[in-house]
């Protein structure tokens, strides 16, 4: 079976972004970009399924500008077999990405799509669920354990009160949570090998998908700042302040 893994190029998770003075967005000039951390976990999971003899091919897909090729190469260095870049300079929103992925699912006929649960730039947490809806497939979001056998998946999900386990027939969409696995580091030989793996480029028009944004961003501002606090010398002073100044205990 084939597994498709969508990988998004995002601002690295260690970067604290700055809002542009004109309120038009965040400043992305010269900022370090990386693969969305949840997508690394997704690639790792797919590659493990291949290593276990359950999957036959792992295809990484990234939608966005030409620079997403880097993200695809990273996915291939972890172990994806090939990459597809859906190239566009249009700002992509989750519904548009889901439609692009749906078109590629029609073409590639995977049995499983493993997405990240959330892109750490837009913090949308939507694309996997939307793809499942468009494809009419089952979904298991926020997965912390995935077992595939006999055309079925059994997935443990992290929910607010604890954990739940769902079982469903493939094809399906799974989205990853942080504790699903610990992605491996790409070794130098694998990075070199990844450079030779096939990488195809298509355009949204080739897939017949209208990617025009549905939401318009009117402005982007900094969040309210907290005013600087005070140092307390010891527990007695802390308790006194909490009781008499903040009045919260």
């Amino acid at each position, binding site marked *: 079976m084939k597994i498709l893994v969508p990988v998004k190029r995002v*601002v690295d998770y260690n970067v*604290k*972004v700055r809002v542009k003075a004109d309120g038009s967005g*965040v400043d992305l000039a010269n900022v370090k970009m990386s693969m969305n951390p949840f997508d690394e976990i997704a690639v790792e999971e797919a590659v493990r399924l291949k290593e276990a003899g359950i999957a036959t091919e792992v295809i990484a897909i990234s939608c966005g500008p030409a620079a997403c090729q880097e993200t695809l190469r990273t996915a291939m260095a972890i172990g994806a077999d090939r990459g597809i870049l859906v190239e566009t300079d249009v700002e992509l929103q*989750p*519904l548009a990405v889901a439609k692009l992925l749906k078109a590629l699912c029609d073409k590639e006929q995977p049995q499983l799509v493993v997405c990240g*649960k959330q892109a*750490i*730039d*837009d*913090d*949308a*947490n*939507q694309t996997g*669920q*939307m*793809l*499942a*809806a468009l494809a009419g497939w089952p*979904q298991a*979001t*926020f997965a*912390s354990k995935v077992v595939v056998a006999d055309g079925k998946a059994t997935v443990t*999900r*992290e*929910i*607010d*009160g*604890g*954990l*739940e*386990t*769902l*079982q*469903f*027939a493939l094809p399906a969409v799974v989205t990853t*949570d*942080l*504790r699903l696995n610990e992605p491996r580091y790409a070794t130098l030989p694998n990075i070199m090998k990844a450079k030779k793996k096939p990488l195809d480029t298509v355009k949204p028009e080739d897939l017949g998908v209208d990617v025009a944004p*549905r*939401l*318009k*961003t009117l*402005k*982007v*501002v*900094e*969040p309210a700042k*907290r005013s*600087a*606090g005070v*140092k*307390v010398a*010891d*527990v007695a002073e*802390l308790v006194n302040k*909490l009781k008499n100044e*903040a009045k*919260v*205990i």
Partner: protein
Amino acid sequence: MSILVIAEHDQQTLKAATLNTVAAAARIGGDIHVLVAGAGCAAAAAQAATLQGVSKVLVADAAHYAAQTAENLAALVLANAAGRTHILAPATTFGKNLLPRVAALLDVAQISEITAVESADTFVRPIYAGNAMATVQSADPVKVITVRTTAFDAVAAGNNAPVEALAAAADTATTQLQGRELTKSERPELGAAKIIVSGGRGLGSGENYHKLLEPLADKLGAALGASRAAVDAGFVPNDYQVGQTGKVVAPQLYLAIGISGAIQHLAGMKDSKVIVAINKDPDAPIFQVADYALVADLFETVPQLEQSLG
């Protein structure tokens, strides 16, 4: 024309997040209908009818809604979407799982985790782990929205809205719930607690976490939370995690103990009213958001704090 709020509940009672979501709906303005889908969920529906601002409660009671799967609930919401201006659910794992599926079936965008309503089509939401706030406008015919519950004060009870039965949609029979392992606790729910005692890697072990923080939480009537590092290290279960990718909380008092204050952690707690940090590293970033900073060893100061609360 009306707003549809999808209730999150456990058949008996509404999850507190539902009350905040109704509050967000009230900000938008218009008739508010609350959908309670479940199996044997009459009690939850009766509670929904008491919420201020609700004009009608719709109950879909059928065996195939017991597990609340996204597949079955999305089909039900879709069948009842006509005439809705907005469809809202809390931005909890329940709402995040469900609403994107609904939005895609309606071919509209979904707007995640709104923190403010500017007008019927314009909303504010955090991006980049809350390091920026975006104001977004939707031109879609129906706005499908998840609500950050900490940004809207829960509506009160005291209403008596009519309750109407709704026909169930067909069972999609796509997924089977095999089981749930829910964390049992006598403590308040993390999302609704007034005081949260949260521990990080600095506690060193699960044993220390429980030994030091539980007595303190007991004295304060507080919920317990944790950083991702504490969860990863196995000190506590996953549903304790506060942060960008865990729970977002905004209690009256948040005590961060042995937590460094990574961007991803701050994203989940920096809207708390009062923040206390106990950390032995004076340069820990948590101190940049703390109202009261105690630079000290937690193994000494946490027991002292517990003692002095009498």
